């Protein structure tokens, strides 16, 4: 998805007045249009400074930043910022304005007509998953998660090609944060903005980023890679320790069950008849077999009862303890397999249709591949 507006940072430097050391030292970074790039690093690494240089809330001491090939210094500052969406951790909603007025801020400044503004506001509120009844409320009446959504809506109001986000989900609790992250990804699938996001949470970076830039103190770029690439192959000790100890498990959350080849596995369709089932059982190494009938997983059967019965209908298969959807991550699959103490998880889509089985071995192979 490389449509959209690219951002290029070349040799960007920032030294604050009164400091001897630069906060950001000669950073080169290329943000592909329509992608999400996450800036992450320890305190003092300059990630927020870099973000705020893109919309000139901080002026670079040196180097160039271009958006869609145009130097950002070419335009007036306010004009630039009106074409960039900006979301911060504490949201900064105007307390004295209703939600509708907050969201309408930039369009109003740009001089849109009232009707156009109203339609757009309603559109955005739907987009971020808020009830329209909240439009006439004031920010103090909303919960943290709702306020953050309004912040995103406000940033997107004038449909800017670029969105800057500074720890946007840091102020909400983990459950809401997870939900907001998922919704951001859904949103991005619809709007295809070029997003630069700052966070200190590596799990968030891994979930959200198309590419992740790990910065060290002074704005040193340690690695700039896709999350999977970085987790598989960290460029330095620093990056490795930043990524944390359980890198492989983190990588599991990046792949989905549907990425695996689900065709194999110890199961058999009842249409092969009792003899066919017995033959399959003989081939099964574990002494267990899954029974499938017309694309529905019936249950598990073991060797002894199978030998004893006269027909398939007399069987009493054990219902599966581990079920999972194709779009779930491998990490969730691992979790459910371990928790249920089964050998495999049954993959079913949301209509209950059987898609295959996932075993631990398949997960390990998927990671290595």
């Amino acid at each position, binding site marked *: 998805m490389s449509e959209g507006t690219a951002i290029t940072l070349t040799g960007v430097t920032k030294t604050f007045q009164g400091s001897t050391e630069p906060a950001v030292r000669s950073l080169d970074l290329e943000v592909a249009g329509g992608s999400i790039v996450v800036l992450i690093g320890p305190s003092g690494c300059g990630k927020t400074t870099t973000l705020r240089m893109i*919309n000139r*809330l901080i002026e670079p001491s040196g180097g160039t930043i271009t958006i869609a090939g145009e130097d950002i210094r070419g335009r007036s500052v*306010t*004009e*630039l*910022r*009106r*074409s*960039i969406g*900006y979301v*911060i*951790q*504490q*949201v*900064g*909603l*105007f*307390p*004295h*304005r209703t939600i509708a007025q907050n969201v309408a*801020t*930039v369009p109003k*400044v740009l001089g849109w007509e009232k009707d156009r503004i109203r339609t757009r506001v309603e559109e955005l509120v739907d987009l971020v998953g808020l009830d329209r009844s909240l439009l006439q*409320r*004031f*920010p*103090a*009446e*909303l*919960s943290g998660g*709702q306020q953050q959504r309004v*912040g995103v809506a*406000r*940033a997107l109001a004038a449909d800017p090609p670029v969105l*800057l986000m500074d720890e946007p989900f840091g102020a909400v609790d983990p459950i809401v944060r997870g939900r907001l992250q998922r919704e951001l990804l859904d949103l991005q699938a619809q709007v295809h903005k070029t997003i630069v996001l700052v966070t200190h949470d590596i799990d968030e970076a891994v979930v959200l980023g198309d590419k992740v830039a790990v910065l060290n103190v002074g704005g040193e770029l340690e690695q700039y890679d896709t999350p999977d690439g970085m987790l598989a192959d960290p460029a330095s000790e620093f990056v490795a320790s930043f990524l944390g100890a359980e890198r492989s498990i983190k990588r599991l959350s990046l792949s989905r069950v549907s990425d695996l080849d689900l065709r194999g596995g110890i199961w058999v369709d009842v249409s092969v008849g009792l003899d066919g089932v017995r033959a399959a059982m003989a081939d099964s190494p574990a002494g267990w077999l899954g029974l499938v009938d017309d694309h529905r997983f019936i249950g598990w059967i073991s060797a002894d009862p199978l030998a004893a019965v006269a027909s398939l209908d007399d069987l009493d298969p054990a219902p599966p303890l581990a079920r999972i959807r194709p779009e779930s991550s491998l990490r969730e699959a691992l979790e459910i397999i371990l928790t249920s103490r089964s050998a495999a998880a049954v993959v079913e889509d949301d209509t209950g249709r059987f898609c295959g089985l996932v075993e631990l071995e398949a997960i390990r192979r998927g990671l290595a591949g």
Partner: protein
Amino acid sequence: MTRRHALAWGGGAVALVVAALWARAQIAGLDVETQATNPIVRWEWVFLREETRTELWDATYQHLELTFIAVGAGTVISAALSAVALRLRWSLTPITAFTGFLYTIPSVALFGLLRSRFGNVVAAEVALTSYTLLVLVRNMVAGIDGVPAAVTDAADGLGLSRSRRLLTVELPLALPVIVAGLRVATVTTVGLVGITAIIQLGGLGSLIFDGFGTQYYTKIVVGSVLSVLLAVVLDLMFNRLEILLTPWARRRVAQ
């Protein structure tokens, strides 16, 4: 209306009626222009004498005029000083020290001192204005500073120009604090205007002064009561204004 409330009001009303009856009982058919044997309040002077109404109205008018000119001028000067203090942070301390120093000068002294050079209205207004500066500057600065940093940052990030940000975001949010400052300044000034009686002004204070000079207590009482009333009414009005200006703060529903 709780029972306690009702009792308090009822009790107050009864006390008032008793006091009025007692005062009425004191009235003897004496010459209105002199106090002679002395009930404290000669109600006839208040209600029956024709010139009284004009006198009272004139005094009140003068009082309000002096007050509002001073507060108005004070607001303008304070706005300028605050703008400077907000731009050049280091100037806040000297400005506060200066306005604080002005406030410390006893009103009696300042009125007298200025009167020795200027006409009495100018002297009064300059002094009264000076006394408002401390509160107004402090509240204006505090009001603007009190706007959360996240809000101003978001305003900048969205692309609002400096002046737009000031007018549409910072000032509305600072207004409650500023109005609170205006309230204190106004009520204080009302009190100080009374003292200008010593330089032949005084508004309602002149009634008190006259009453003292001619030993006519009714004037003292009426002047006092009206001054207090004026101050209380203005205080309540500004209070109401503060509330009206912050509709967003009143609605706070936790989800």
